[in-house]
């Protein structure tokens, strides 16, 4: 296995949980609901995924458990934000805090237990193709699901009637209601889909990424997923790009740090010079790169007002109370 392939493999692993959580949140936001509880739903998925895998001994049931836990947990948000029309920002933040606390409580029994790993599914023949074989055809099921979800969501949103209904609810819940669409039902489903995806992303962390359960193990990945949705300006395929870009930045900064300049002296002077410049960047700065990238993209896309308005769900974050 070459170094390049090894790096890409870790980039893929780093991107998958972000991709899963972000694609779910995209659907939620497209229905006009801003759920800031992604981090909370992810961590619930992580603890439930680990617990189910541990109890049943089957990591697939674990992943399923994580998905269900995320969806159930998001129901709490849906009830508050959609039925009771509470402030979505505050409710979402509360969901994150509650999730971090609850998962710590419920996960106590699983601390320090070596977990059950979700092993890769190796597709015969295809996985033997040099370079791309191992990358695309010898991965765990959650990787395949994450990629498939992006295309499925893209198709659903823009090519099906149900997707059109979902988008119309997100763009003008008043009009959708007048047309006889059950706004609350659409939003409940969208929120639960987001929860299920976030839960699955969390389960990836505790079943694939690091096979263990530790409190707060999501470590802010839910927030990156939220940023990714804005980064992608609510377009599914751009989420794919964004998640892999984030994953790459996360991994490459570690590789730059691990390089020893004295091993690179054989390189031509310009490349060596570039590497030594990269090496001299403080690691604290490198660690913050994914977040800086989000800010830069936000600035760039907000410069084009029309483009932003086209893609942003107009009702994002606004509760809907039918007047009749």
């Amino acid at each position, binding site marked *: 296995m070459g170094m390049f392939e090894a790096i890409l493999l870790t980039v893929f692993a780093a991107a998958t949980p972000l991709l899963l959580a972000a694609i779910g949140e995209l659907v939620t936001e497209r229905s006009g609901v801003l759920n800031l509880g992604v981090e909370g739903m992810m961590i619930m998925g992580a603890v439930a995924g680990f617990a189910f895998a541990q109890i049943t001994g089957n990591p697939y049931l674990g992943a399923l458990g994580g998905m269900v836990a995320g969806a159930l947990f998001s129901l709490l948000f849906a009830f508050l934000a959609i039925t009771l029309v509470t402030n979505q920002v505050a409710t979402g933040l509360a969901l994150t805090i509650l999730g971090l606390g609850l998962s710590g409580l419920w996960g106590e029994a699983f601390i320090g237990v*070596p977990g059950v790993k979700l092993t890769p599914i190796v597709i015969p023949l295809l996985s033997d193709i040099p370079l791309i074989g191992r990358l695309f055809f010898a991965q765990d099921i959650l990787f395949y699901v994450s990629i498939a979800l992006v295309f499925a969501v893209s198709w659903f949103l823009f090519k099906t009637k149900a997707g059109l209904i979902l988008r119309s609810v997100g763009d003008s819940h008043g009009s959708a209601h007048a047309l006889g669409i059950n706004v609350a039902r659409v939003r409940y489903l969208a929120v639960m889909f987001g929860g299920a995806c976030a839960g699955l992303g969390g389960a990836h962390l505790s079943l694939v990424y690091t096979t263990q359960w530790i409190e707060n193990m999501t*470590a802010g990945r839910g927030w990156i997923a939220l940023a990714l949705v804005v980064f992608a300006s609510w377009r599914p395929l751009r989420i794919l790009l964004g998640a892999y870009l984030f994953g790459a930045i996360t991994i490459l900064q570690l590789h730059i740090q691990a390089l020893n300049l004295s091993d690179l002296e054989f390189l031509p002077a310009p490349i060596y010079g570039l590497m030594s410049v990269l090496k001299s960047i403080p690691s604290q700065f490198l*660690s913050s790169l994914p977040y800086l990238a989000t800010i830069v993209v936000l600035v760039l896309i907000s410069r084009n007002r029309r483009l932003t308005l086209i893609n942003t769900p107009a009702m994002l974050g606004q509760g809907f109370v039918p007047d009749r």
Partner: protein
Amino acid sequence: MKKMLGIIAAFAIALSASPALSASHTMEKVKACFIYVGPIGDFGYSYQHDQGRLHLEEALGDKVETAYLESVPEGADAERAIERFARSGCNIIFTTSFGYMDATNKVAGKFPDVKFEHATGYKREHPNVSTYNSKFYEGRYIQGQIAAKMSKVGVAGYIASFPIPEVVMGINSFVLGAQSVNPDFKLKVVWANTWIDPGKEADAAKALIDQGADIITQHTDSTAPMQVATERGIKAFGQASDMIRFGPQTQLTAVVDDWGPYYVKRVSALLDGTWEQVDVWGGMKEGHVVMAPYTNMPDDVKALAEETEAKIKSGAFDPFTGPVKKQDGSDWLAEGEVADPGVLLGMNFYVAGVDDQLPQ
């Protein structure tokens, strides 16, 4: 009137004498409170402090009541947490992470009757603040020697947390140990800029292994790097506690922090009324630092490790003994000179042989 003045004077004398009395008074029961930076289930640093707390409860029985707060971020939250403890009747508060230093001293100024014990720091701005630390670097020297013996390629990977003296000292000691065995030994350092984030620690371990390191050591708190090393079939060192459960075929040894005896000593001192401000820096000799069993290595490597351990324990040897040069080539320690503890506790430079740029 004169009589009145006399009474007042007597009162004043009594009042002024009372602090002297209270300073030596004994206590029936002590409430000892602990603040941890990570979850007690990290099976690393915070876990070991909590083991110390449990040891304290066991040793002193009903004379002590304990309480703890886990996963308290370093910063503004820490000050609130410490102050909450101080208000809730804690007699002694152990703040167990470097980043609590300023918060601890600030709260200590407001509560002169509460004792504060800050781990791994150096600021004692009030008479009721003590600092305590362990010479983990002693263990890291032994790890370095083992790494140099065990590595096939002569390259180890080091996952570091934050560029604070504690961590820099560990890296330096590891390199000095390794180069005492193999002068060409190389170390790759990755700064994770976190104490605990299993995903990032695992990524760092993978990056280091992908770049050729075949021994992994860490100064972050989760067991994730140990698991990665196991998956990749290489050897690794546990951090802060014995992590052998996570890598039965992987762990070579671990530097184990044993805080229990210190906690018992300090709370007993408070019970006896003999508590005084101290600055304790204990190592293997004092029992603060213990090596986990030497596993997964040939007998000659084990013998070398045990020999060095015995020398350090007896006080005959300190890892920071000259001649040692700084990374920039300037002289630091002359032949036979032992580093001054003050310099070590403020260490912000690498020794010669570390192939990394220290983040400032």
